[in-house]
């Protein structure tokens, strides 16, 4: 019943605003339960959440479609994200409630360095909470549940 599946997917599709463009991607959704500071909150060498007070401590953001309900500004957040991009441990995509220019600077610089850069999208934190399981994002920022035959990124 492919028609039914497509109809369901259409119902669940979300259109996000593109903050930093990038190639289409897919991955497992990881919606953080609380705002995070990348500096001091994410290990730049392993991509693990290391903030001792964060509810998602121990999860790993590498390769995930990472949804952030909020970010806590640190001047060095961009450095952590840039290091993750360089070593291939960046999220598959980053979804923000509102733009964080300091964090996204890590992606802007990564692109200037010619490194493969994940896209960044803007999506309300209430809507973010609906993201679950494997999801696909096309280059226009349309978010859908991944089709069963889509291999992980």
């Amino acid at each position: 019943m492919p028609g039914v599946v497509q109809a369901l997917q259409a119902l669940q599709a979300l259109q996000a605003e593109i903050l930093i463009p990038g190639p289409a991607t897919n991955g497992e959704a990881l919606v953080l339960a609380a705002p995070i500071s990348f500096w001091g909150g994410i290990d730049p060498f392993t991509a693990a959440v290391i903030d001792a007070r964060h509810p998602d401590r121990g999860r790993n953001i590498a390769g995930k479609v990472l949804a952030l309900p909020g970010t806590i500004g640190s001047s060095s957040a961009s450095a952590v994200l840039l290091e993750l991009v360089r070593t291939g441990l960046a999220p598959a995509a980053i979804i923000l409630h509102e733009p964080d220019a300091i964090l996204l600077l890590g992606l802007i610089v990564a692109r200037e360095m010619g490194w493969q850069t994940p896209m960044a999208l803007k999506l309300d934190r209430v809507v973010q909470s609906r993201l679950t399981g494997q999801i696909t994002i096309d280059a226009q920022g349309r978010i859908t549940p991944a089709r069963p035959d889509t291999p992980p990124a």
Partner: protein
Amino acid sequence: MTSLSDEERLIAAGTDGSAMAMRIVAESARLLGAPRLLPVASAHIDGALYHGDAGTLFAEELVRLGARTAIRATLNVGALDLMGCSKSRLTGSDRDMAKRLMLAYEAMGCERTWTCAPYQAGHRPTLGTDVAWGESNAVAFCNSVLGARTNRYGDYLDIACAITGRAPDCGLHRPENRRATVVFDVAAIDPVWLASDWAWPVLGTLFGRELGTAIGVVSGVAGPVSEDRLKAFGAAAASAGGVGLFHIVGITPEAPDLATATGGADAGPLTGTIMVTPAMIRAAQAGLSTAAGATRIDAVAIGSPHLSLEELESVSQLLSGRTARVPIYACTGRHVVREADRTGLRKALERLNVIIVADTCVVVTPILPAIDGVLMTNSGKFAHYAPGNTGYGVVYGSMADCLESAVTGRPVMAESGVI
């Protein structure tokens, strides 16, 4: 949408280092919602502190592409003490990459200041000047005490602004965003306490916790406040809450009176008044210590922000020839070290177990011995970052109490407990 001038567009379309820097500034402006770029007169660069190889490769790419700073640019601390006063335990590749990072920034024409207190090393933009500064304490001092205008420019954007001489026109560059919306009233606090050095990091910590990133004006302070005290206040406020601009009625240049600081009759309403009580002060002070019950200390660290020459001289006066039982790490800039070398102060202090730390500091690079120790400090900023970054427990006290404690090896709280 950010609109660029013809000249800016032309530069961004190029292939050299200036082009890369202009694209980074323009993209940041777009994300910040800035309508345009504005010229900036100077920069203070925080990007030369090693956080991983990516930062080094970026800086070296800019050098390879011929990037040079277009405006005065001073350097914040790096991960290594290039003056050789102290030794970081960074080794191997990390040490090499940290050194290459520092040299790349020097190669782009940045001044070798290597201090988090550039405003005490001769870099003092004047009232109303737009600049692009990084390092949270320097940003707070620059906006609040000098009255120059800057947002907080973090890693990579700081050097891009220095190369292009441009910054996104938004935030604290715009006068309408600089007015205080909250009054922080200290009239109920003992003026004798307010006239002590150690009051100011505590007050700054409370201010930062209460204000977050909102702009506040302190009222009820009588008499002049020294620059070193304003430095300590701003650093504590910035690390405790993200404060980038504060006003103090009668002290800071944009607050000759309360009405001016809050924007006058035409401004929007105040969002609140905080009446500071002695109990709030005691709670803020208690929160700075994580090892309050310690019966011994392993080290003392002072100098965040970097010590001024006057502060370093006061160390000598307070020790008055007594050798410390535990090492005193005194962090400062080379602008102070040069003077201290000239007068013999550095050698005299080193004989008393004071370790001068230049170009860097003990919470950004591993200088303290790797032990499960207790650190005593008079700095609100060290107190905030030392537990996470060094693993040491912290006891907070005044400069005099820190030095007495270093002499005896036990926490001495002669003056720090009283309000």
